[in-house]
C-alpha cells in the first residue's frame, strides 16, 4: 500500500514518506494490539458460556459474583507480578508475603488494638517493605530475582509463623474488618467490596503501567536493561521501586484475604505465587520481559477462577479437575499463540 502512494507522488524525495501513511498503519498496529486482548477475552467468554450450558447454575448472578470474589486474591497478587515480570524478573515471595502482611494486619488490629485504618495501612506498608527489600537485593546486591524472592518467600513464611506464634489471629474485636472485603457497599448489588477493590486496583495498575514513568521504565528495563541504563535511566533505583510497587499489591492482597477469612492465617500462601504468575502469563505477558498488560492479567486471573469454579460446579471429580485445568490452559495459550504466529527462525 505504501508503495502505491509513494509511486503516485514520485516527485518527492524518495526518503520522505507521505504523512497519511503513518496514520494508516498507526491504526493497524493499534487494532492488532487490541484484537489480541479481545481474543483473550473471547476465550474467557467461551469458557463461561460452556460452563453455563453444562450447568445453568453456573450463570446465576450469585455464582458469577462468587467467581469474581474468588479472583480477587490471586488477581491482586498477579497485578504486582505483572510489573515484575515485565521487567524480566520474577517474584516468588507474593504468596507467603501475603500471609506475612495479613499477620501484620492481625498484630496491628488485634494485638495492638489500633483502629481499622491503621491495620489496613500497616498491611499495605508491610507488603511494600517486602517488595522494597526484594528490590534492594535484586538491584543493589545483584541477586537474581528468582533467588532473592525465593529466599524472601522462605523468610516471610517463617516470620509469619514467628510473629503470629504459629496460630491464626482473629479479628473478632474489629467487626468492621470483615466488611472491608465482604460488605456490599453498593445497594442492590450482590457483588462484594473485595471485587471493587480489585478492579480499582487493576485500573490504577493499568494507568501506572501505561501512563507513568515507572510503568514506561518497567517495559524498557524488560526490553533491554543495559540500553536503558546507558540511556541515562537510573535502572537500579527504578527497579527497586518497581518491586516495591509490586509488594504494595501483595500487601493489599494480605489485607483482603485477612478480611475475607476474618483471620490471619500464617501457614498458607505457598503455591499462590505460581498461580499468580500463571495468571500473568496466561494473560499474555512474556516471562522474557518487555511485554505485557494489566488487562491481560485480569483476563488471565479470571480464566483461572472460571475454570476452577466451573469444573467444580459441573462436578468433575477432583483428580480430573487438575488434568482439565492443565489441558484448558494449554489450549487457551496455544490458540493465543496461533493467532500471534509471527515468523520464526526455529
Amino acid at each position, binding site marked *: 500500500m505504501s508503495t502505491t502512494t509513494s509511486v503516485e507522488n514520485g516527485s518527492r524525495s524518495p526518503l520522505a514518506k507521505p504523512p497519511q501513511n503513518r496514520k494508516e498503519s498507526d491504526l493497524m498496529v493499534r487494532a492488532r494490539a487490541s484484537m489480541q486482548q479481545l481474543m483473550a477475552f473471547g476465550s474467557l467468554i467461551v469458557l463461561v458460556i460452556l460452563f453455563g450450558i453444562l450447568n445453568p*447454575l*453456573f450463570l*446465576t448472578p*450469585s*455464582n458469577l459474583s*462468587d467467581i469474581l*470474589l*474468588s479472583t480477587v*486474591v490471586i488477581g491482586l497478587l498477579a497485578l504486582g507480578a505483572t510489573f515484575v515480570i515485565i521487567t524480566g524478573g520474577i517474584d516468588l515471595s507474593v504468596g507467603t508475603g501475603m500471609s506475612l502482611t495479613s499477620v501484620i494486619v492481625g498484630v496491628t488490629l488485634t494485638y495492638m488494638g489500633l483502629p481499622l485504618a491503621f491495620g489496613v495501612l500497616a498491611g499495605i506498608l508491610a507488603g511494600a517493605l517486602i517488595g522494597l527489600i526484594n528490590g534492594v537485593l535484586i538491584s543493589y546486591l545483584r541477586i537474581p530475582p528468582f533467588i532473592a524472592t525465593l529466599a524472601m518467600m522462605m523468610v516471610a513464611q517463617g516470620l509469619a*509463623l514467628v510473629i503470629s506464634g*504459629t*496460630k*491464626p489471629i*482473629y479479628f*473478632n474485636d474489629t467487626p468492621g474488618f*470483615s466488611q472491608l472485603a*465482604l460488605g456490599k457497599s453498593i445497594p442492590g448489588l450482590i457483588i462484594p467490596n473485595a471485587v471493587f477493590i480489585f478492579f480499582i486496583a487493576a485500573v490504577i495498575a493499568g494507568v501506572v503501567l501505561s501512563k507513568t514513568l515507572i510503568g514506561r521504565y518497567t517495559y524498557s528495563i524488560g526490553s533491554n536493561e543495559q540500553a536503558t541504563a546507558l540511556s541515562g535511566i537510573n535502572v537500579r533505583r527504578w527497579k527497586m521501586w518497581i518491586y516495591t510497587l509490586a509488594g504494595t499489591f501483595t500487601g493489599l492482597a494480605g489485607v483482603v*484475604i485477612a478480611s*475475607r*477469612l*476474618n*483471620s490471619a*492465617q*500464617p*501457614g*498458607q500462601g*505457598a*503455591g499462590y505465587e505460581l498461580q499468580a504468575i500463571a495468571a500473568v502469563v496466561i494473560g499474555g505477558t512474556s516471562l522474557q520481559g518487555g511485554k505485557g498488560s494489566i488487562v491481560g492479567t485480569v483476563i488471565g486471573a479470571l480464566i483461572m477462577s472460571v475454570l*476452577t*469454579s466451573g469444573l*467444580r*460446579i459441573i*462436578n468433575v471429580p*477432583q483428580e480430573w479437575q487438575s488434568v482439565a485445568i492443565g489441558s484448558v490452559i494449554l489450549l487457551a495459550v496455544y490458540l493465543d499463540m496461533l493467532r500471534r504466529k509471527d515468523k520464526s527462525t526455529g
Partner: protein
Amino acid sequence: DTSTTPDAGAAATSEGQKPYVAIVSKGFQHQFWQSVKAGAEQAATEYGVEITFEGPNTEKDVAQQIEMLTTAMSKSPAALGIAALDSQAATPILDDAKAKNIPVIAFDSGVDSAIPVATAATDNKAAAAEAAKHMAELIGGSGEIAVVAHDQTSTSGKDRRDGFTEYMAANHPDIKIVTVQYGGGDQLESANLAKTIINGNPNLKGIYGTNEGSAIGVVKAVEELGLKGKLTVVGFDSGKAQMDAIRSGLMAGAVTQNPVGIGYETVKAAAAAIKGETVEKVIDTGFYWYDAKNIDDAKIKANLYE
C-alpha cells in the same frame, strides 16, 4: 438447637432427584480422606442421597477451602458437610447456610459455632493423649523422645501435638520431649527429618508421628538406620504401610480414628436432617489404640484402612 429444614429437602426431592449433599473436607489426597469419602459414599447409597466430596490440596489452604465451600453453596445443596480448616474463617458461609435453611454437618474437626446440626469427629487431643500414654509405657516412663508432626498451624496438627505433650508434662516428668518438628505430612520429608533428629539425639528412645505421612516417615527413618526394636515408634492413623510396620515390629502401635465411620455418620446425619428428622448433636466416632496384638480384632479392623 436441631431445627432442620423440611423445605429444602422437599424442594430437592420433589423433582424426582435425590437430594444433594455437598461435602468439603480438609484434604483430598490422604488415604484418611479417601476413607472418609468411602464411608460417605456408602451412606449415600444407603440413604439415597447424591454427594460430592472435595478438599483443598494442602491442609493449610484455608482460602482454597472457602472457595470450595462457596462453589458448593452455589449448587444449592440440600445439606452441607464440612471439615473446617478454620472454623472462624468459615463463619460467613455457615451463616449463609443458616439463612438459606441448609443444614450443616461438621465432621473430623469440630466447628466453633452453633450452626452445625451435628458433628461427627474424633477428639484429637484425647486421641493424642492415648498415644502418649502408650509411648510412656513402652519406654518405661523416662527418657528422651521426639515428635514429628504434620502441621504447625492446623487444628488437627496442633491438637495431636499438644494432646501428646500436655499428657507427658502432666503425667511423666521424666520423659523429655527434645524436639517437635514438622514434615508437612510428606513421607520423604518426614523420613529425612526423623533421621536428622535421631542422628542429633543419640539417647532418643522414641518418636511419635502425628499422622499417616509423618508416622510412615518415622518408620522409614528407623528402618533405614537399622534401629528396629531399639527405638519406639508410635503413630497416628492407619494405612497399609503403618499396619505392615506394626505387624513387623517397626512400629509399636498407633491411634486410629474411624474415618469410614466419620464419612458414614456425616452423610447419615445429613440425610436425616434433610428429612427433618432430629439428629444427634455430637457423634463421637471414637479412636482406638492398635498394635500387633489387637490389629486383627474385628472391632479394630473395621476402623483401619489400607
